[in-house]
């Protein structure tokens, strides 16, 4: 009767397999076929190189604002790597590397970040949702997809991504609670990169870990070294298997770091120290994984060059795309164009037909968001 702690106590695990100094816990080392290891590493390098190229493109005004992923390659690829093509991936806005891995054409992503709605269209056979910008709002969608798959009896697992800041939103809470009650096949992957723009984790929540938030929903939560692709994969693989077996949702916290800016419109020097960044550069997920592959003689010299070619080719395809046709604004608002929109479309068409002669020329719009350079491909 009296005052007693509830048993069993609540517990959350931490997992690390390949640490920053390359030490490997062989007991936990996941059994991944050599060629798959190489694919995984290639995806990480592609993610890194693409990210660097995109920053340059943005600085040159050739694409618009986007959220770089540098430093988070292991946490988003080690996890997505555990999915089948028939599984669903629900990204936030910082999973470019994972999206490419999942089959998004690079040129399409570049279009997206250049303000072309066409860039947001997944292929018909692709089981991926497009980028969601309002933080955490994609989590209930992922739960709904998982519910629908379960309802239909499909062999499908859903994996969704979000950041540390996202855990503060009501949608995070409601989504995990529904997932727990419905016991759906879903894996929640939190990329805890320590910062929500300028807000550090300690100002984001008073909880020791983000993984422990799973306890509020009676769900398993695990914290992994998010820069250790083997640990991320092992935890994700386990969670995906659990979901596939009908044993419900898992919350995975990947402890990682955003090495770059929040978006190309952000200036991180305003809120964090060089030392902190240096510290984390030492823990770079690519370095330690490269070492691991070298030890296993799976290292390929020509990889970077090869990857750069792929990127360059994609950029060329992207830049070959013509100006955006304004009239497509009215496509896909409804399945069928209602009368009032048909009228507005006709007004715009008539207006465009008047061509440059129209007087006065629209004045150039005001300067872009702080930090962001103007892009040359924004106007039809």
């Amino acid at each position: 009767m009296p005052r007693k702690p509830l048993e069993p106590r609540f517990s959350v695990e931490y997992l690390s397999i390949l640490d920053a100094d390359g030490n490997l816990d062989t007991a936990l080392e996941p059994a991944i076929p050599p060629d798959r290891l190489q694919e995984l590493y290639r995806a990480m390098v592609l993610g890194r190189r693409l990210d660097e190229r995109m920053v340059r493109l943005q600085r040159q005004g050739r694409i618009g604002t986007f959220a770089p992923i540098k430093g988070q390659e292991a946490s988003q690829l080690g996890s997505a790597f555990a999915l089948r093509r028939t599984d669903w991936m629900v990204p936030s806005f910082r999973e470019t590397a994972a999206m490419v891995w999942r089959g998004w054409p690079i040129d399409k992503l570049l279009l997206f970040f250049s303000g072309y709605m066409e860039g947001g269209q997944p292929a018909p056979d692709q089981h991926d949702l497009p980028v969601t910008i309002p933080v955490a709002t994609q989590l209930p969608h992922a739960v709904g997809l998982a519910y629908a798959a379960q309802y239909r009896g499909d062999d499908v697992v859903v994996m969704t991504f979000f950041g540390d800041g996202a855990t503060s939103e009501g949608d995070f809470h409601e989504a995990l609670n529904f997932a727990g009650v419905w016991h759906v096949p879903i894996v929640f992957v939190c990329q805890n990169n320590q910062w929500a723009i300028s807000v550090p984790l300690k100002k984001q929540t008073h909880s020791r870990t983000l993984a422990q938030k799973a306890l509020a929903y009676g769900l398993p939560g695990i914290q992994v070294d998010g820069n250790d692709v083997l640990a991320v994969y092992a935890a994700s693989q386990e969670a995906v298997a659990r979901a596939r077996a009908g044993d419900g949702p898992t919350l995975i916290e990947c402890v990682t770091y955003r090495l770059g800016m929040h978006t190309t419109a952000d200036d991180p020097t305003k809120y964090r120290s060089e030392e902190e960044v240096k510290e984390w550069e030492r823990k770079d997920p690519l370095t330690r994984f490269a070492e691991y592959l070298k030890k296993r003689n799976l290292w390929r010299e020509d990889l970077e060059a090869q990857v750069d070619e792929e990127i360059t080719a994609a950029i060329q395809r992207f830049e070959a795309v013509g100006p955006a046709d304004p009239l497509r604004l009215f496509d896909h608002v409804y399945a069928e164009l209602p009368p009032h929109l048909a009228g507005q479309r006709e007004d715009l068409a008539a207006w465009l037909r008047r061509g440059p002669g129209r007087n006065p020329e629209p004045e150039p719009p005001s300067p872009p968001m702080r930090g962001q350079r103007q892009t040359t491909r924004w106007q039809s």
Partner: protein
Amino acid sequence: MAKLNMVKALNLALLQEMERDGDVIIIGEDVGVDGGVFRVTEDLHRKFGSKRVIDSPLAEAAIIGTSVGMALYGLKPVCEVQFSGFAFQCFHQIENHAARYRQRSQGRFHCQMVIRMPYGGGVRALEHHTESEEQFYAHIPGLTIVIPSGPRNARALLVSAIRNPDPVVFFEPKALYHAAKEEVPDEVEALPLGRAQVAREGRDLTLIAYGAMVRVAREAAEVLAREDHAECEVIDLLTISPLDRETVVASVRKTGRVVIIHEAPRSFGPGAEIAASIVEGAFLSLEAPIRRVTAWDVSLVGFARERAHVPDAGRVLAAARETLAY
């Protein structure tokens, strides 16, 4: 053919559409075992089980958010928000996502879903249980806003809403849930969305209303016919947005005089768009200013004052007479 009140008529639409299409599922607070606080989903849980008629946890944003996900997968959720006053909790999921997914994915995905919510006065409940929020949704591109005015059109419109490939916000006038019974055919009947109906023909004045206000407009029209020998045309919008401007404008071209009636507050309300559209479409026919008989620009009412707040036939009549005399 059976005489049904609006609750039973809506229940019939849900039952038949669920029997017809296994992708139609119901989700909301207390929609299952309890059959909904207004009993609109009565018995469906027993018939279709708890996987298809989902008693969800208490969280509107997740009800809509998970329904969006289900719809993206191909299901056709019919969500219930217990009272329209609690739908602002999920407003971001509706505006950010339900209304946008077709366009965001450029047609790869769409949200075939219905969001049902009881709205309006008439049940003398507390705050947030008597408001009329249709305006907030009418301004969102990608949505269709439907409000029935009687058992038969409620059933027919809900059928169409469930079959509509894009999201429909379906407002149900609480005041009419039990107000009257109508013959409702057993075989499925559907009414086109986006079309208003002329509920009463007339050449002297156009009364534009929807939901519970149609009854009020009709009543005023009867009195005007009886006492003033003025014949009012009563337009029942049925779909608020996209607005059926054609029907509205055609009527005003004929009558030249308009009174708009709604339960929502006046300023920046639905009557404003109706009036603006009339000015755009029938300017030269207008013989008097367009009058709006609406609730006052006040949020909190309290049912002790509700009848001084919601338009009644008396207030419509007064406005109509002034418009006719103009």
